[in-house]
């Protein structure tokens, strides 16, 4: 019970911090919107072309936005010593780390869902695929946060961790990109997407269970 209390305390603390900092919520969101605006400018505004590649664009941008927001997951805790205190707590680090990841997703991942319909309209996506797009974002972005947490935990102690982080994390994002992007595309042509959604659900379950362990181990290694 007291573990649950500690879990909630961490979530509450991180949400409170996010509210006091604010820009942390806005930055990935703005990035997400900006990248998507760049595509029509770069490849020309032909509606058919944009419509065809819209699922891919949205998902690749979500991937990049998720990756950019990762740095804030442990950075400030590492810098001010709060991370040491979390690691020294008698409660299992993996559970406390999971709380941090959940809070981080609520702050950086969930807002992507809110702007996604707007961007879908920008790119002329068919309306029937909008629901599937939101569903894949809802299932997929937590996986990105969970896998990404491993990468940041490994690199948080480094002065220049940014580039190496993308090298560590992006290859692991490939399955999410494939299934989520494909589900949205299929939904656009009115095909069933049960298989892809089920696979995304199982990826989410798998990463919820597995990812906090290496993250906790990597954090212990990073504070050394």
């Amino acid at each position, binding site marked *: 019970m007291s573990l649950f209390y500690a879990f909630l305390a961490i979530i509450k603390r991180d949400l409170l911090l996010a509210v006091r900092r604010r820009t942390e919520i806005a930055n990935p969101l703005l990035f997400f919107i900006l990248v998507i605006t760049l595509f029509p400018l770069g490849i020309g505004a032909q509606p058919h072309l944009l419509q065809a590649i819209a699922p891919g664009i949205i998902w690749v941008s979500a991937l990049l936005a998720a990756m950019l927001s990762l740095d804030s997951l442990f950075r400030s805790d590492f810098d001010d010593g709060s991370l040491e205190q979390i690691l020294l707590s008698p409660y299992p680090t993996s559970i406390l780390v999971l709380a941090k990841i959940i809070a981080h997703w609520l702050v950086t991942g969930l807002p992507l869902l809110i702007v996604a319909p707007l961007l879908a309209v920008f790119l002329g996506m068919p309306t029937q695929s909008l629901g599937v797009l939101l569903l894949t974002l809802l299932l997929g972005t937590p996986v990105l946060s969970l896998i990404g947490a491993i990468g940041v935990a*490994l690199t948080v102690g480094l002065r220049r961790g940014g580039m190496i982080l993308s*090298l560590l994390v992006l290859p692991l994002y*490939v399955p999410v990109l*494939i299934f989520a992007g494909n589900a949205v595309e299929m939904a656009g042509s009115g095909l069933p997407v049960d298989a892809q959604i089920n696979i995304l659900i199982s990826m989410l379950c798998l990463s919820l269970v597995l990812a906090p362990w*290496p993250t906790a181990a990597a954090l212990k290694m990073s504070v050394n």
Partner: protein
Amino acid sequence: MFLIPNAVVRFFHRMASPPHFYAFTDKVMPWLIIIFVLLTGFGLYGGLYLAPADYQQGDSYRIIYIHVPSAWMSLFIYMVMAISGAIGLVWRIKLAEIVAISSAPIGASFTFIALFTGSLWGKPMWGTWWVWDARLTSELILLFLYLGVIGLYGAIDDKRVASKAVAILALVGVVNIPIIHYSVEWWNTLHQGPTVTKMDKPSIHISMLIPLLLMALSFKFYYLIALIQRIRIELLQRERNAQWVKTKVLEQN
């Protein structure tokens, strides 16, 4: 552990000590090189000279004697890396950590060779250097995974910490490799329809198979030789303050 005979446990225990490992590999190395040269010689002779040309692809198929063993090695070495990394994490055996990180550049090279030869082979087969074929794509992602491991190791100054980081990353990678592999395969069948797979003939002729297996074995020995050399250098570097390194250096001068 009770399933493993005592002598084997003792052997591994001794091997985990750097001076013993160093002395032991000194003795084994010439034999490994002889076996490697023989295997490669027979393999290439069988593959490039004895084996008949393919009725469709002519002689260009012969690149499989490099391509296929390299692709096998790229996965095999990642497994070795993850397993030895796990051993290093759990039992704190320094040598296992060193095996893990020393394997990474060799594995990355094999992955690169597999990609490069695959692309060379693709030119006559598909008429283009690169096709987003499932095998090549997963191989490319595997290369990124290797580069991540090497980059992470290089970025962390304290090498003991870096070895731990590499072990964690390799384990995460090894869980993901099958998922990545199957998702890429699935993606490929959806987007491209049936493509030409390279090994689609179910029965490969015995005169082609034997050289292929010989080459695969010779690549394993090459890996072993390269790995041991890298481990020896890494050991000397890490243990440069230890007495046995000093006596070793004095002996050689």
